[in-house]
């Protein structure tokens, strides 16, 4: 990279505690929204604005301060056989979205108070007793996950049930999921399991089946909460190639220093030109 390195709060694999995460296998999701409800109940998340999306059953719309699990419903007409104009078949995709708990988490890196931190489980959590509601994490997140709660003023998002993890419990959403679409466990195990599962699905003819954020070499260093999708990520409202913005920060700081130098030189230049006359 460039001249200087920025120290970043990363999961330390030397820790005794293995990194924990979610594998959300959307091919198993039946759209029951038990995860949404369980999350709300356990974490005491207030009511979110109701929305309705199309003919679908999505009434939460998107992740935000008051929605930490969001089940997306994608309905589209699709050809069922060759020559079909699409009127024949309806494809129905369901997917439970959640905070990705990125390896390189922009929200955590830009947080000026240190309120956002990396837990011993490798997850990313807001310390609500420290957050002062500056809002920087909101546009930093490449997934549109974290948001400010208006009436409260602070930033909120999924904690991967930090309180439950500390008691050796499964997060509420994973525990409530009746189809094992949401699987909780050690990240390494989950990744192995997901590789096998996506291979099986492709073999069975699910051409669009793909893992999303399971690769540690992607723009966020892989996610603690990754997915198996049946179509491209953007269909589910997920960015297809997300990046941690602070990867560019060393370059941004250099440009900023250069600009600040230009400013100073301009003042001196204006003064010097005055002297010589």
């Amino acid at each position, binding site marked *: 990279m*460039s001249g200087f390195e*920025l120290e970043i709060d990363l999961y330390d694999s030397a820790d005794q505690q293995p990194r924990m995460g979610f594998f959300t296998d959307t091919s198993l999701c039946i759209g029951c929204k038990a995860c949404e409800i369980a999350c709300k109940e356990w974490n005491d998340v207030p009511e979110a604005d109701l929305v309705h*999306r*199309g*003919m679908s059953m999505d009434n939460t*719309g*998107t992740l935000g301060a008051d929605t930490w699990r969001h089940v997306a419903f*994608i*309905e*589209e*007409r699709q050809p069922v056989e060759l020559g079909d104009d699409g009127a024949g078949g309806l494809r129905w995709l369901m997917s439970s979205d959640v905070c990705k708990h990125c390896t390189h988490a*922009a929200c955590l*890196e*830009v*947080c*000026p*108070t*240190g309120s956002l931190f990396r837990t011993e489980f490798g997850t990313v959590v807001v310390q609500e007793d*420290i*957050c*002062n*509601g*500056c*809002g*920087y994490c909101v*546009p*930093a997140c*490449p*997934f*549109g*996950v*974290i*948001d400010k*709660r208006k009436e409260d*003023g602070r930033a909120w998002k999924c904690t991967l049930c930090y309180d439950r993890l500390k008691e050796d419990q499964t997060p509420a959403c994973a525990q409530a999921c009746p189809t094992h679409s949401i699987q909780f466990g050690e990240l390494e195990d989950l990744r192995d399991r997901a590789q096998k599962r996506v291979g099986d699905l492709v073999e069975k003819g699910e051409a669009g089946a793909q893992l999303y954020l399971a690769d540690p070499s992607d723009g966020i260093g892989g996610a603690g909460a990754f997915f198996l999708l049946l179509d*491209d990520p*953007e269909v589910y*409202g*997920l*960015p*297809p*190639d997300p990046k941690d*913005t602070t990867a*560019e920060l*060393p370059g*941004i*700081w250099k*440009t*900023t220093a250069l*600009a*600040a130098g230009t*400013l*100073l030189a*301009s*003042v*001196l230049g*204006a*003064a010097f030109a*005055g*002297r010589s006359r």
Partner: protein
Amino acid sequence: MDGDLGLAGGGQDSRGDRPRSGQARARSGGGRDGGPTVPRAVPRSYYGQPILNKPTWTWEIPVYFFVGGMAGASAPLALVASLQGNRGLARAASAAALGGAAISPVLLISDLGRPERFLNMLRVFKPTSPMSVGSWILASFGPAVALGAGRELLGILPRLGRAGQVAGAALGPGLSTYTAALLANTAVPAWHEARRELPFVFAGSSLASASGAALLLTAPVDAAIPRRMGVAGAVLALGATATMEHRLGELGAPYHEGGAAAGVGRAAKTLMATGGLILAARARRGRRRPVLGALALLGGSGLERWAIFKAGVASAADPAATVGPQRAHRNAEERAVARERRSAASAQPAAAAQPAGPAQPAGSSQPAGPVQPARPD
């Protein structure tokens, strides 16, 4: 406007009865003949919803960009004026720096969701957070320019005041420009992809506003330096803005095509150019106070920050601005992998005759499309 990245009309599907994936599944050309392929025409999205969450900052933030920028550029002006024995200008610039430094924290604190916790900003120092760095700059800048102003305006503590002036002059340029780093270090396409120009836009804009403030507060006979500074600032701001909008390509649409930001941006450029021209015409000697020129620079500078802020909000709301370049990048990577595989396969039988192996460069780490500029590092 169906450009390469197909940002046209992205996400404007307000009816949103159905994800656009249905109709617009134009698979990327395929490149069967090995020719260049065209990315899909319309990026897909989930009911046209934004990918990113909307920045929650309110009016205080763009106003702070302006006020803090003005204060930051006034500090070095105060120092050079004082060193040259230009008392009038030193007083004016010191007052501008102190005034800006006093208003800035009020604006920032009132934007916080929990204003009473503003001191948490100084709980840690994080170079990965431009807001943290900026908080420390502002917190040290205030006392520094207060000492400087005490020296120039009240004649107290001259030695300490001089030290304050020097510190203020050192910190001020950082105060004026770190806010650009703050915006660039987000996922918002119109800010992040402008990261190589935004700091220069802010530097030029800050020079112009500090010049405007000094011209209003200084007798014309003492105001030669800010007149030149104002011209330089206007040139820098206008040049950097033009470069930024050009390099952003379609991602820069919120800056110049329709919408609230574009109108404000045009007004900002007009004012900045007018102010610069007025001052340039009088750069040699001014008998009268260039009030109009000064006001034009101040207005141009303020509106410029407002336009940049609004453009980012619009950019975050457009799923096509987020998905388009990312999809293009991913398609390019996938094509490169496929090409590599193909050429590896075709090279196999001829391996004995041609020891050169696969000739195709991987190039998979570089983005394709014009909107994804090459990485600076």
